[in-house]
């Protein structure tokens, strides 16, 4: 082998695969609700807890499919915990720094992740009450991104003991 050629230490082999995911029967109801500005969860027929979003369509504790009836939740909720994201990475959709909050919507039994804005990161608190800010209706699609972010609602903070069971 010639000494003049540089050793190949790394090769790039781009290979693309396209996937088309299905939302599933129960998440479809949730996504259709978002088209109408509604936050629709589903109730577990076994333990009665309300899941929003209804994720894979089942109650993970009971291992049963969620019921068919929609349960409207929110729109306001409580920040149970949060993280200030300062780190940029490939494929990131939101420019850091930003606050990713776990929000327990009123009427739901499980928190969901969303963006928290219109508040300085240093002022975000566990227990803070928040409300959704919707994108202009013309831009709505079947997506949680219809809510651009949550912001403080001005309601008094919720006592730690009232949401400690959610952490």
């Amino acid at each position, binding site marked *: 082998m010639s000494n003049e050629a540089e050793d190949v230490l790394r090769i790039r082999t781009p290979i693309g695969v396209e996937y088309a995911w299905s939302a599933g029967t129960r998440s479809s109801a949730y996504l259709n609700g978002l088209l109408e500005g509604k936050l629709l969860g589903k109730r577990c027929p076994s333990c009665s807890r309300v899941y929003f979003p209804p*994720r894979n369509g089942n109650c993970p*504790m009971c291992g049963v499919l969620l019921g068919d009836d929609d349960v409207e939740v929110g729109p306001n909720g409580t920040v149970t915990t949060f993280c200030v994201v300062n780190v940029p990475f490939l494929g990131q959709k939101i420019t850091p720094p930003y606050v990713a909050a776990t929000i327990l919507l009123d009427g739901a039994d499980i928190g969901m992740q969303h963006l928290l804005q219109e508040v300085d990161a240093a002022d975000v608190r566990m227990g803070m009450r928040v409300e959704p800010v919707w994108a202009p209706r013309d831009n709505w699609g079947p997506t949680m991104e219809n809510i651009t972010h949550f912001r403080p609602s001005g309601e008094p903070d919720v006592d730690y003991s009232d949401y400690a*069971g959610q952490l």
Partner: protein
Amino acid sequence: MSIAGLVREAADRALADAGMTMDDIDAVVIGKAPDMLEGVMMPELWLAEALAAAGKPVFRVHTAGSVGGSTAIVAAQHVMSGVHKRVLTVAFEKQSDGNAMWALSVPVPFGMPVHAGAGGYFAPHVRAYIRRSEAPGYIGAMVAVKDRTNACANPFAHLHEPDWTLEAAMESPMLWDPIRFVETCPSSDGAAALVIAAEDVADSLPGPKAWIRATAMRSEPTMFAGRNQVNPQAGQDCAADLWRKAGIADPRREVDVAEIYVPFSWFEPMWLENLGFAGRNEGWRLVEDGVTDLRGGSLPINPSGGVLSSNPIGASGMIRFGEAAMQVMGTAGEHQVDGARTAVGHAYGGGSQFFAMWVVGAEKP
């Protein structure tokens, strides 16, 4: 080095340590975290040749971040079942061949794309722990300095950074507030391998060995209403099962050293509580009191430097299990805990929902 080279190097070292060659091995058990980290689907199929495993059973485990630990346990079960006598188990990850932050944050179309890798996922849990336990803010930095210092005594550690002080660590930038840069594991390339043999085979080998006293695994769902994400029930149940099987009544006194899976420094106090080494909300006190220090601590945690100093994800759990074994074999070199007779290896994965643990001892149980 290629993935194949990395895996083969670890396998060769383990075989040499056991005084065996691949001809002696009955079966190979391979573990790694998501295939998308390197972009090769089910890579064990391709790696069988590099491991000289053609003609043998090759088995692939994937249980998220706990996989290195579960792979060791599945390998042990190949022997405990009486089906095989000598099993080689290998776990690896080569993060430099892909982009883990991307692979762990693939946007799911049904939620908001606020996820920011593992740090973004676990930071809220850390915040909840700090709130719940009223731990001082410097505990995470203390663990980080300890682990980074310990890593300097481990030639296989990824990071060798001897100069960290508590003051410097507290100044380290916040990546995923409340998690600082220094409190975060690196992205590493690495592989680990163990040879697990039946009792009669082990008795015939001249070198030191680590006797597997007990193994345990538990899983729970990722998200459910009212889930305790700080002190998950699956981890508590797994530890209780482990202590029961090993006949350990008081882990804090009976265990000499533990290698536990701490990718973000705050998980050391969290897991000390989850494992039953400390009472609820008391884990951080062991850190503050120096109990978990390599030198002078009565329960050294992660003398190898831990995940915080090297994180080849799929291998990280097996490194914990292997380091625990090295401690009771007395072969841990400069990070050896004097007189270690009983050691714990621990791994967790997913959203703190998959747990794998073992207890190894210097004496045959």
